[in-house]
């Protein structure tokens, strides 16, 4: 019989040993550096590192990946302050006030505040994750086909809505992902579909080569399009450790940004970037010194930085409890869990409480680790930002290729990597978001299995989806999301006519 506290304590003996902690520090350091390098994202860091975890223990591999995740989301802020461009997309808002602070000679102060805010935001999110995830998993245990179908559909519609560019394109991208997910044996009857007599496709498209192709290779190709010129960074950094007075001033912003980050992160597919944008918007309304925002106010750094790191714990909630990723990185983490034979979802909490507990502890430690690295080593990281793209891009591409090969020594997977690298590049070029495709690929089997199961159980009657409260709520939300662009337009039209 497992007790309540097991979910928090069972992982301790597995986590606190030399190897796992070493991997964690390695992951966080690599994450901070890759996150700080402009053009290379936190998502890329986790995608490229996942194949490395193949031969490791579950605990070591999650130490590495969760470290890279938390470190990567934080690392982007250093570049935002020093070079005005975010190191990783979620640090976009940090540049607005962080860069002017740097120009004033307060770069160190801005980085210090970003570091502490990220840490507090991340830690709050881990606490919320560890309190709510077990409870949600408990509820999710009672989910049947209808609920799973409705929640997955909601996740897919929201990512199409949130992705930049047109919503129709987002939905199309999601549908392509769903179609790709049907390659391989039919989950219910075992009939092989769309495999073109290729044995490699019998089990479906391997997830990781697709993910590394889209989030690794395609990003490299897109970056290569831009000029490979060097970036000008602020050289003078100064003292990084923030004073008590400075912290007291930004604390309200951190405490506003963190819960926003957790909630936004927990919405399937809405990640740190959106959390940061919303947190900044809230600051503009409620901050004490709101007039200073945009000219280098510390609040403008603290709020988005606490929010984007708070989204990490939030994004883990649907990923761990339902198997539905909260953002692109947690989508890759699902692939990593599957490598180790662990299926995310409510049963994970019942059957592998040790792993769940280790994930909670590792995430908390990752936040602690980047706090240390940020406060002590930000100056060292700032030196790496200037590494020329001419060196970085080939190295990342090599990592993508060798990593993909290492997953199962397959040349077929390398082909998949190259094809999806190209698809991702063309998507980027046509402003078609690629994230919905990935989510479709992950959610496809869940959607299909549960839709067909629902229809078989109810003998073809779809109303059963609406008579169960949880699935009804999520389906209504889905419809609202799908039609919101049209509704908003209508409201605007009506308002326009009145005036």
């Amino acid at each position, binding site marked *: 019989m497992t007790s309540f506290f097991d979910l928090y304590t069972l992982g301790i003996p597995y986590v606190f040993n030399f190897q796992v902690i070493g991997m964690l520090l390695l992951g966080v350091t690599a994450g901070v550096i890759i996150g700080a390098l402009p053009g290379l994202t936190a998502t890329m860091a986790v995608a490229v590192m996942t194949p490395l975890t193949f031969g490791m223990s579950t605990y070591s591999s999650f130490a590495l990946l969760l470290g890279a995740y938390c470190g990567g989301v934080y690392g982007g802020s250093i570049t935002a302050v020093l070079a005005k461009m975010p190191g990783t997309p979620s640090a976009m808002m940090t540049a607005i006030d962080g860069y002017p602070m740097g120009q004033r000679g307060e770069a160190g102060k801005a980085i210090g505040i970003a570091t502490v805010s990220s840490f507090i935001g991340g830690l709050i999110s881990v606490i919320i994750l560890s309190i709510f995830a077990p409870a949600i998993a408990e509820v999710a245990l009672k989910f049947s086909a209808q609920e799973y179908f409705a929640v997955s559909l909601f996740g897919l519609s929201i990512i199409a809505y949130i992705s930049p560019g047109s919503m129709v394109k987002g939905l199309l991208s999601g549908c392509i992902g769903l179609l790709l997910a049907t390659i391989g044996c039919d989950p219910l*009857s075992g009939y092989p579909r769309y495999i073109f007599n290729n044995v490699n496709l019998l089990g479906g498209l391997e997830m990781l080569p697709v993910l590394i192709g889209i989030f690794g290779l395609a990003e490299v190709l897109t970056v290569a399009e831009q000029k490979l010129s060097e970036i000008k960074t602020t050289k003078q950094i100064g003292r990084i450790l923030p004073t008590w007075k400075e912290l007291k001033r930004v604390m309200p912003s951190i405490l506003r940004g963190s819960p926003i980050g957790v909630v936004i992160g927990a919405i399937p597919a809405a990640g740190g970037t959106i959390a940061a944008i919303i947190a900044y918007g809230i600051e503009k309304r409620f901050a004490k010194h709101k007039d200073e925002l945009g000219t280098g106010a510390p609040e403008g750094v603290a709020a988005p930085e606490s929010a984007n790191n708070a989204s990490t714990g939030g994004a883990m909630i649907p990923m761990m409890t339902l198997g539905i990723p909260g953002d692109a990185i947690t989508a890759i983490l699902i692939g990593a869990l599957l490598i180790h034979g662990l299926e995310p979802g409510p049963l994970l909490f019942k059957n592998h409480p040790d792993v769940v507990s280790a994930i909670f502890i590792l995430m908390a430690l990752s936040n602690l680790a980047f706090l240390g690295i940020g406060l002590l080593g930000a100056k060292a990281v700032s030196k790496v930002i200037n590494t020329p793209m001419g060196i970085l891009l080939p190295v990342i591409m090599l990592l993508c290729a060798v990593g993909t090969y290492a997953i199962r020594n397959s040349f077929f997977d390398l082909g998949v990597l190259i094809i999806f690298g190209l698809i991702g590049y063309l998507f980027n070029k046509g402003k078609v978001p690629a994230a919905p495709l990935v989510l479709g690929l992950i959610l496809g089997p869940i959607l299909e299995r549960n839709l067909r199961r629902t229809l078989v159980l109810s003998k073809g009657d779809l109303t059963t989806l609406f008579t169960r409260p949880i699935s009804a709520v999520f389906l209504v939300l889905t419809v609202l999301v799908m039609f919101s662009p049209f509704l908003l337009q209508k409201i605007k039209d009506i308002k326009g006519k009145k005036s």
Partner: protein
Amino acid sequence: MKKYNFILTGLIVLLCIFVLILSKDFPEGFRGSGLGPGFFPIVIVVIMLILAGLNLLETFRMKDKSISFSWSTIRLPLFLISSVVVYTALFSVLGFILDSLVFLFASMTFLKVKWLKALIVAVAVTLVLYLIFRTVLRIPLPRGILGV
């Protein structure tokens, strides 16, 4: 951008037709319920065709912003992806070490890194990766003509 959108829509419609053709011989579902292996893909295809129509409408209404397929923008991406293809093709012949060295050195010098710097980075990165994959993770990589 408009042109690209039209091509994109056309490709999606082609994909839909292709999937429909492939699915037509799928077995019937359980006791004629219609829920065989083809059910879900066909539902998706129908949704996609509707979306493709909407996308077409959107395209007609949008202002034409250009996306550049000019040689100067796609030159580097094209070179990089081809170099990965070549890398993959030569992977088992040359072996991991030689193939990686050649790939890194060639693509770095193409991206205008000075040759000495490129050589040092290529050797260092290859060695580190070799250590990680072979020694630490014990993943077999092709030995190729060097035999290591």
